[in-house]
């Protein structure tokens, strides 16, 4: 296999894997019992999913500026995701600090 083919296979693999994590995050949105736990699924799975997609796209970009650009997109998305996740979580926090006691399947 030539270098081009290897990089293409790598891209397809990493991007598909990344999409799988987005899918897992969405599934978490549907299956998890309350908004706080759903936020976990979204922030974590999307971070890894987007990271993998960016990683997969790196070999397709030839210039170093392009690499840094892709990574900057990931970092800015992380900052946004982390901030919004915390803000939503803070807004949803029960006032007495007790855990929302429902749907906790035993591990």
């Amino acid at each position, binding site marked *: 296999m030539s270098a081009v083919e290897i990089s293409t296979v790598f891209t397809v693999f990493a991007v598909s894997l990344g999409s799988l994590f987005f899918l897992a995050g969405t599934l978490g949105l549907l299956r998890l019992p309350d908004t706080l736990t759903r936020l976990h699924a979204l922030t974590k799975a999307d971070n890894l999913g987007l990271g993998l997609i960016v990683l997969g796209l790196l070999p397709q970009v030839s210039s170093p500026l392009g690499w840094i650009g892709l990574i900057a997109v990931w970092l*800015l998305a992380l*900052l*946004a995701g*982390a*901030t919004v996740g*915390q*803000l939503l979580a*803070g807004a949803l926090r029960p006032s007495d600090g007790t855990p929302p006691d429902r749907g906790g399947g035993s591990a």
Partner: protein
Amino acid sequence: MSLPAPVDLGLAALVLGLAGWVITTSATYRAAEGFVAYGLVLALVWVRLGSVDVALTEAALGSGLTGLLLLRAAARLPADDPAETTRPGPGVRVVAAVLCTAVAGALAAVVLLLPEPAPSLAPAVAANLSATGVGNPVTGVLLAFRAVDTLGESIVLVLALVGLWSLAPDDAWGGRPGFLRGPAAASPLRFLAQVLPPFGILVGIHLLWIGADHPGGKFQGATVLAAMWVLVLVAGLRQPPRVTSRPMRGLAVFGSLVFVGIGTAGAWLAGAFLAYPEGLAKPLILSIETALMLSVAVILGLLLAGPPEPDDAAGVRS
């Protein structure tokens, strides 16, 4: 006749569905939330229609800033407002529905009966664009061929601000705008407001700078700048300026003044109001764009910040 692409059909369905949600949902706050999502989908529609300039404006201004304005207003309305619960009777609603369907039907007929081939000013723009030295046809139209519209618009923004401020009660005059003041912001929001604005400034200036030749321009750039300012205000890192602040007022009218000044100079040097002397068109357009971006950003931010309130308002009202 070809069928529209599935993605277009999906977008149209989504736009209509979200619009229906904005109209039918019971709580005003949720309707405003729906409006934000609606604006974002509409921006995608504009991309499909080949107008990236409009799409950027719609996403930033139509969805982002308008949505923020309506959400904050919805949150400030009294909770026991009778307007939230009363609805007109079924008779009124049926008549309204029939009437509105008729209007929509008439418009749809107009769309289907538009003349063929479509009249277009695109060839005229293409033929004359090189004279302006600008590569983006929309920027060319906004600042050269239809510059009077844009000048009028920049003045409308100033007038809207004057109108907004004139709504303040007498005891509030001289105070600071109050819409964006609130309880102490959460720590993650403060952090975002400390980290993000420099990047927003770069993006805003970039949008202005490339706007001459690519999609982008002063309105889009100004919206990004205004959004950054509003983020800093909402996070409580800075206070909005008093409405009597002279530097701020000067900045708000600066763009219109530069525009009028260059336009008047054109009447003298190039023979017509708002005409640009040969060869100088592009630098002049860029100067106007830069000055307008500053003023529009300030005005958008101040429009969002609302009318002034008395200095003790935040403490007394609770």
